[in-house]
């Protein structure tokens, strides 16, 4: 047994951290936050050059062919830097869907473009409020064309292609759902940017009007593929959330050491120390759950569904806990636009919802534990 990343993987993490510290300082995040650009294009190109976009994409499809453990360590650093790029939608959702269900031609067409940074991808799943469910998917697929509306779609306004969940039956059952691949630049799809709590990760409404679509995976397999994509993305996003938790904890710790009140650093007051200790505890529990998720993801273990839900819940809780308490430790300053605390608070609360809410994943976890128990 060895429950840790290898030295090579840790080295990759250090490399990514160094790269992001240089290319993605808070100033760069603010450019996107302030609406000056929809995402950081220079950073996106840099990530491609470093090989980070295709780290888990096989070499035959233009990637680095490293693997998912390597992608986990990169994800952690993306979260720590709060990187304002469409990484999660392109790499965790679109690329994973292609890897799982794409034909050879589809992989050949899109994966090299993802790895090189030429194409941004996303997953169009939701149709308004609610959690992932076959019943909630109404967008219709008929004869190779799609009609309907998807929102919110992460990075939908800047994406080049989307994996779209559509209804090919009428009963609301799993087998009524199929996935399609849509070239968003080919016409038939209108994208509208939507205001959201985290402007560094865009959200959009996509309206499909007789949009040309090719099937991704077999007809009726959509729900089963989606479930697997969401589980895989849950582990990867959880690493981002852990990276963000750690950064929020560090910011709070540093401020508590520097800020003097009543003649002492505020970090010497037990009330403040204990807030920070609890942040450390939540981040540590999340990290450990994530490591288990990483192992399950990288080995495609039968434990993956349960491990993914646990990592997702734990990391969501930790990031929300750490980012809100980082603001608390900063006092009034933490609530200002000028300080960086709110960027992590925004990201934490947006990440908490992008793959389905916390309560959805709680439900999933108990279902999966029950199934295992019954087996």
């Amino acid at each position, binding site marked *: 047994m*060895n429950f840790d990343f290898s030295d090579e993987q840790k080295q990759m993490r250090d490399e990514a951290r160094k790269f992001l510290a240089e290319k993605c300082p808070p100033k760069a995040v603010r450019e996107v936050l302030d609406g000056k650009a929809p995402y950081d294009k220079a950073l996106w190109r840099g990530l491609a050059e470093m090989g980070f976009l295709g780290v888990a994409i096989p070499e035959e499809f233009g990637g680095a062919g490293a693997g998912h453990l390597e992608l986990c360590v990169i994800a952690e650093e993306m979260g720590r830097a709060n990187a304002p790029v469409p990484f999660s939608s392109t790499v965790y959702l679109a690329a994973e869907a292609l890897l799982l269900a794409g034909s050879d031609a589809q992989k050949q067409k899109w994966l090299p473009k993802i790895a090189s940074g030429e194409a941004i991808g996303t997953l169009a799943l939701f149709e308004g409020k609610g959690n992932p469910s076959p019943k909630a998917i109404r967008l219709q697929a008929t004869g190779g064309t799609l009609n309907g509306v998807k929102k919110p779609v992460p990075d939908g306004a800047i994406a080049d292609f989307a994996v779209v969940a559509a209804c090919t039956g009428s009963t609301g059952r799993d087998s009524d759902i199929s996935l399609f691949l849509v070239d968003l630049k080919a016409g038939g799809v209108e994208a509208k940017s939507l205001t959201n709590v985290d402007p560094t990760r865009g959200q959009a409404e996509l309206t499909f009007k007789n949009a040309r679509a090719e099937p991704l995976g077999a007809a009726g397999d959509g729900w089963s593929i989606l479930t697997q994509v969401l589980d895989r993305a849950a582990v990867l996003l959880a690493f981002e959330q852990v990276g963000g938790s750690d950064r929020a904890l560090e910011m709070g710790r540093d401020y508590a050491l520097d800020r003097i009140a009543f003649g002492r650093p505020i970090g010497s007051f037990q009330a403040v120390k204990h807030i920070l200790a609890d942040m450390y505890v939540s981040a540590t529990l999340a990290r*450990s759950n994530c490591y288990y998720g990483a192992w399950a993801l990288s080995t495609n273990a039968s434990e993956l569904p349960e491990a993914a839900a646990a990592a997702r819940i*734990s990391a969501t809780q930790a990031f929300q806990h750490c980012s809100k308490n980082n603001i608390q430790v900063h006092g009034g300053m933490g609530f200002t636009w000028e300080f960086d605390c709110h960027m992590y608070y925004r990201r934490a609360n947006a990440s908490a919802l992008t793959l389905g809410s916390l309560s959805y994943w709680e439900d999933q976890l108990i279902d999966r534990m029950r199934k295992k128990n019954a087996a």
Partner: protein
Amino acid sequence: MNFDDTPQEAAFRAEAKAWISANAPKQYEEELRKSSLGRTVLKDANILEVAKAWQKKKADAGWACLHWPKEYGGRGSSPIERVIWQQEEGPFGKLSGMFIIGHGMCGPTMMAFAGEEQKRKYLPPLASGEKVWCQLFSEPAGGSDVAGLRTRAEKKGDDWIINGQKIWTSGAHYSDYGILLTRTDPTVPKHKGLTMFFLDMKSPGVEVRPIKQASGQSDFNEVYFTDVKIPDSQRLGAVNDGWNVSLTTLMNERMSIGAGVSTGFPELFDFCNSLMLEDGPAIEDRSVRSRLANYAVKASGLRYTSMRAISALSKGERPGPENSIGKLVAGSMVQEVAMYALDLQGAAGVLSGPEDAEVAGKFQAMLLRAPGTRVEGGTDEIMRNIIAERVLGLPGDIRVDKDVPFNKIPTKGRA
């Protein structure tokens, strides 16, 4: 990253499994499996005798105190082998409960500070469970503030004479030996005038009085010392260097307690899986599922945190203060879990008799034992201080008695 055994680990596991299967006291397996915090008792047997017999059997076959050196009664095993053993020992491991203090804290302290001859004399019977040890640190005036203790040791010829009182001493009523922290110089600041000894609990002048706890059980004791004589040869470390000696013990305490604290989650999950509420099975209730999921990720988070610590240990890294999170998280969780399990039982949750209460009153027993878990071996607040100061690097609490001679420190608030 992997969870598979290496060929050596697999061989060790197979050997352990075969031996346990052939030798464990299987007649108690079911009872032990069902026991949880607040209730490890055997209906028709004296648990102390059963535990001692199992420990002796393990020791004779070379399975006791796996990580200790062979010459002191151990096996010289790696940290991973220890974990494999614990996995295979399963519910029978619960029988080791009464040896935790001796094996986890007293043994390591003796190993670090006793003379070679003493180690060879005292450690093997400690490993084999023939002799049980306790740790005499806490006092009415010094719980979390361990260095505030008042038990005096005065030198007389080659002996030391001990007078004073200890409290919260786990297992003192069945212990043969103890390690004892005393004050040898009250004229210097409190950390600088302490000295550590070990002693025979049957020495004249030692009186053990069990404390009846909130749960109604008695796991702890008060121990009184009246002119108890300890030879200087039983001193551990230098005179007045007892604080440093005790840090070795406390660090080991955190490792051994932190790793073994129950969260109550497996019990709660099973309970919710079988409990029927008015509207159907509890586990299908939305709010029950949400609570369960929250506990589930804490329990798994702790499990994998300790696996990370073991991986680090097996690479030669030292166990750090981050291990304090085990007790901090599990301690308050087990209390919440117990309260929640009672809440699910509604009005009948108040009943605690094994005949009337759900699952034979398991959660009621847990409820009444749980407050102790949050206090013993360091309170939640001390654990948070350790994390804040030693892991996160925040300043220490302000200590107004730091440079004050011990005998000048006020002994009463609101004078």
